């Protein structure tokens, strides 16, 4: 069984879009104050929810065809993206613990993917 390129594109696309969704969720979350309007009229929060939903639809569509051992590890692209966006947009530090942690998660997901084959 081979994995169609379209499935890989869907999963990789879903990963990137999901990480962007998380960026919107964080900026929206930080804009919340003690008023209902700061939640209801929070376009960043709304964008975050929509992009996050979109990414999950892409994941489900992508995962329905192809090998999980190939597609599963592609999900971890979203964690690497989140590290890059966090550094660029929120000026979070790239520490050794973060690189090691994300590296281990990546290896673990590859093992899970290969193990489900």
């Amino acid at each position, binding site marked *: 069984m081979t994995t169609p390129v379209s499935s890989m594109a869907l999963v990789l696309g879903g990963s990137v879009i999901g*990480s962007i969704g*998380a*960026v919107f*969720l*964080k900026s*929206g*979350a*930080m804009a*919340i104050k003690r008023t209902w309007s700061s939640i209801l009229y929070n376009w960043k*929060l709304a964008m975050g*929810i929509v992009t*996050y939903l979109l990414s999950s639809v892409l994941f489900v569509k992508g995962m329905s065809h192809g090998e999980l051992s190939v597609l599963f590890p592609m999900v*971890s692209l*979203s*964690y690497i993206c*989140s*590290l890059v*966006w*966090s*550094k660029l947009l*929120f000026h*979070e530090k*790239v*520490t050794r*613990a*973060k690189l*090691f*942690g*994300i*590296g*281990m*998660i*990546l*290896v*673990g*997901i*590859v*093992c*899970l*993917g*290969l*193990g*489900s084959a």
Partner: protein
Amino acid sequence: MITVSPEATVVDHAKRRQAVFIILAGTFLVAVAQLLIKTGANRLGHADLIGTAIGILTIPPLFAGYCLYAIFAVMMVYALRHGELSILFPLISLGFVWVTILSVIIFHEAVSPLKGVGVAVIVAGVATLGRGGSH
């Protein structure tokens, strides 16, 4: 050098640690939600878009699954207010571990040695990130 009052840093650390725990607890909810949706989706058959929407509201496991997702969204927004995105977002990968464990307990799925290694390595990675995030 900017001086930070010790009290302020303590509060900050406590909130960051709280954010890490909220996300870790949330990943369990997501795993349960995924299994509920997987169970409920079997009852959907080949429903169209409207059929799926009605199904989400009327098929109990589907409805419960999506409610859990909504609760996780609220938890995530709360956690992201105080925690770092580069720590909290990769922590969601713990969901893979819960799904594997729950599949064994509920559906009696077999675990290959490689899957076992995968679970252990993800847990180690999450622990490394989580510890780094609360200091």
